[in-house]
C-alpha cells in the first residue's frame, strides 16, 4: 500500500471528529462509551501513520504499533469499567441516560 500518510491522518481526524460529535450529541451512556472507543481507534490510526512516517525501507518502525497495542489494552479496561458503571447506574435509576445524572447539579 503506497497511500500517502496524509490520507491516513485525514481518516484518523475524521473518525476522531465523528467520535467527539457523538460524545457530545448522544445522551445514551452506552453510545457515549462507543464514541470514546471510536476516538481511541482514531488515535491508533494516527500511531500507525506515524510509524509509517518514520519507517525506512530497510526497517519498519514498530513503536507506533506497540503504542497502539497498549491503547487497545486501555480501551478494553475502559470499556469494562464503563459498562460496569452503566450496570450499577441502571440498578439504581432504571435508566442509562446521561440527563438523569444531575444530583450534583441542583
Amino acid at each position, binding site marked *: *500500500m*503506497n*497511500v500517502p500518510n496524509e*490520507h*491516513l491522518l485525514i*481518516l484518523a481526524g*475524521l*473518525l476522531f471528529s*465523528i*467520535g467527539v*460529535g*457523538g460524545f457530545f*450529541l*448522544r445522551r*445514551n451512556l*452506552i*453510545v457515549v*462509551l*462507543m*464514541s470514546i*472507543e*471510536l476516538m481511541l*481507534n482514531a488515535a*491508533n*490510526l494516527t500511531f*500507525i501513520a506515524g*510509524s*509509517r512516517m518514520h519507517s525506512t525501507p530497510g*526497517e*519498519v518502525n*514498530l*513503536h507506533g*504499533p*506497540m503504542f*497502539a*497495542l*497498549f491503547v*487497545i*489494552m*486501555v*480501551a*478494553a*479496561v475502559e*470499556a*469494562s*469499567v464503563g*459498562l*460496569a*458503571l*452503566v*450496570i*450499577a447506574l*441502571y*440498578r*439504581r*435509576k*432504571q435508566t*442509562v441516560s446521561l440527563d438523569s445524572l444531575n444530583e450534583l447539579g441542583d
Partner: protein
Amino acid sequence: MENALFYLMALGAVIGSLGVISAKNPIVSVLSLLGTFFCLAVIYLLAGFQFLAAAQILVYAGAIMVLFLFVIMLLNLGGEQAPWLSSETLRARRAPLAILVSIGFTVLTFVGILRHDEVQAANAGLGEADTIDGLARLLFGSYLLPFEAASVLLLAAAVAVIVLAKREREPRLGGKG
C-alpha cells in the same frame, strides 16, 4: 489495487462511525462500530501490521463489542426494534442466510487451497516485513515495564468491575439498592 482497497475501507469506516452516532437503536450502533473496526483492521493489514490487525479483531471485535452487546441485552435497552432486526424477519431469512454464508465459506476455502501459489504471492506483497518478531522483542525488551504495568491495570480493572457490577445484598437507605 491495494490503494483502492484502502479508500474503500476508509469510506466504510467513516460510514460505520456515522452510523454509530446516528442510530436510534444501540444494537445498530454496536453493529456499525463492529464494521468500522473490521475496516480499520484491514487498513492495519494493508499497512503491514499483521499482529495489530489480529489484535484489533480479537480484542475489539471479539471481546469489547461482545461486552457491549451483553450489557445492552442484559439491561434490555434494545428499544423499539428495527424491522430488519425483529425475530420474525430473521426467522424467515435464516435458511437462505445460512446457506449463503456456508457456500461463501466453502468457495473461499476451496479457492485458497486450489490457488495457494497466488495466495502466497499476494501475502508476500501485502506486508513489507513480518512484524510479530520485532514486536515481541520490543515488548519484552524496552517496553517490559509498561507491559507489567498493563497486567496490574487489567487486574485492578477486573476487581473493580466485579465490585461495581455485583448486586448489593441489602438495599441502602434512600436508594433502590
